[in-house]
């Protein structure tokens, strides 16, 4: 299923905030149909990387190519090119209802007739959202908002789905469900770039992984290799009872 055809290629990306160089000379690629996972400590630059792809922060230098074509610099154009992000910290539209939030996710789509169907699909992924569809998103619980953020990103039916810590604040049972769903979404042809603290589960789900440290790529490789790597194990996977 891994077609080896690159979907997204990043070359020598640099991003700075004032004097802080958050992403340094970073190169990575994601092939069509892959799930790629980026792990790293707090402040490693993972979110910055995601935001740079989406055009939410300014790229200082470097190229990003989507299917061989340069990726736009403005976020709305990036979305139009088929990339969508579930951002860190959820960022749901608080005063809009759950339903309206999901419809915002579908904003760039032209195929109106399929939107209803996808809405049902998202509701089936997260039944809680259906229950709460007319509640203002701002009053949802943390986990419910997270579900909404993921659902909203899915509603655009992207080629490439970016998820910044999707498991943040979710109950264990939901995390399992979500990871299972991600696998299924992926098998339906959506390529996924995932940033996770829940590194072990994320790597188990992914094909390949990158380890980020202070803005630079420290390691990369097939997910199972990283899982087995003692250094990675010690630094990022933790020795938990689970």
């Amino acid at each position, binding site marked *: 299923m891994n077609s080896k055809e690159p979907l997204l290629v990043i070359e020598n990306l640099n991003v700075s905030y004032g004097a802080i160089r958050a992403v340094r000379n970073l190169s990575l690629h994601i092939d069509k149909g892959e799930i790629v996972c980026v792990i790293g400590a707090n402040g490693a630059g993972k979110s910055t990387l995601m935001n740079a792809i989406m055009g*939410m922060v300014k790229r200082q230098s470097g190229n990003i190519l989507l299917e061989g074509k340069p990726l736009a610099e*403005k976020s709305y154009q990036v979305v139009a090119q088929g990339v*969508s992000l579930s951002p860190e910290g959820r960022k749901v*539209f608080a005063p809009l209802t759950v339903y309206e939030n999901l*419809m*915002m996710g579908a904003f760039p789509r032209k195929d109106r007739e399929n939107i209803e169907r996808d809405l049902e699909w998202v509701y089936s992924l997260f039944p809680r959202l259906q229950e709460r569809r007319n509640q203002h998103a701002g009053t949802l619980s943390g986990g419910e908002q997270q579900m909404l953020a993921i659902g909203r990103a899915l509603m655009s039916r992207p080629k490439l789905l970016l998820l910044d810590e999707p498991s943040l604040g979710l109950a264990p049972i939901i995390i399992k469900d979500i990871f299972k769903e991600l696998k299924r979404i992926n098998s339906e042809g959506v390529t996924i770039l995932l940033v996770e603290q829940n590194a072990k589960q994320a790597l188990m789900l992914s094909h390949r992984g990158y380890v980020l440290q202070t803005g630079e790529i420290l390691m990369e490789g097939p997910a199972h290799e990283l899982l087995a790597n003692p250094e990675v194990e010690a630094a990022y996977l933790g020795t938990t009872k689970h």
Partner: protein
Amino acid sequence: MQTLLQQIINGLSLGSVYALIAVGYSLVYSILLFSNFAHGGFLVIGGYICYFILRTAGANIWVAGLAAMLGAGISAILTERIAYKPIRERTNITLYLLIASMGMSIVIENIFVILAGGRFRALPPVIPTKPVNVLGVATTSMFDILSLVTAVVFLGCLQLFLTRTKWGLAIRAAAYDLRVAGLMGVNVNRLVSIVFFVAGVLAAVGGIFLSARYTLYPQLGLITIKAFIAAVIGGLGSLPGAVVGSLILGLAEMLTAGFISSQMRDLVVFLLLIVTLLIRPSGLFGKEVKEKV
């Protein structure tokens, strides 16, 4: 009784002019969440364009009105592009926008002081002002009826647009968070431009009505303060609120002046504002979304 009816009619007619202004202001507020003090400037621009085209080019009111609406709409877009866009792209602190808008309002006012002089002008009587008798007991003018109808029609269309279309939804989403709206594929700049254009058009209509009903001069924009107050009473960002607030304000002014004391008119306006807000801190129609902690 007759006096009461007359004052009510006076109040409604004043209120409808406020409404035209308040709706445009509220529209901008609903998306960028700041009080655009330059709105009064768009009004003045619309008024002057209409005036000069009527006076010098001798065009008819429809042409002049259209030109004024276009002109004010485009000026509104330009104002946004020049003065607000750089700010909102940098920061989400709306206070900066508010100050910039005050600056812009000073700039626009003084451009006209220089170009057109400070003189008071009036549109030729293109809009019928002849008295119309209401039920045989009170008098109003064609003009007032027209302005009330115009306000209601514009508002109705806007309201439909906002609640029924996906662009309307996008406006409300962008109102909450511009950056994340961009993340949804909304071309935020275009969206904001559209909003400003509509606001500018509304302001021009208000400006034409104001300069025909009253007079045209560079400081005419000051009247928008009353319209702002009306919008706040109605609930910022709520278009029906803007209209209802305007009518209430118009009525309050006229009834106070008529039955209590004309000097107390503004005092009552401010009291009304404050009392309304104390009872309903986000205005009559404003939604009070309690922040979740």
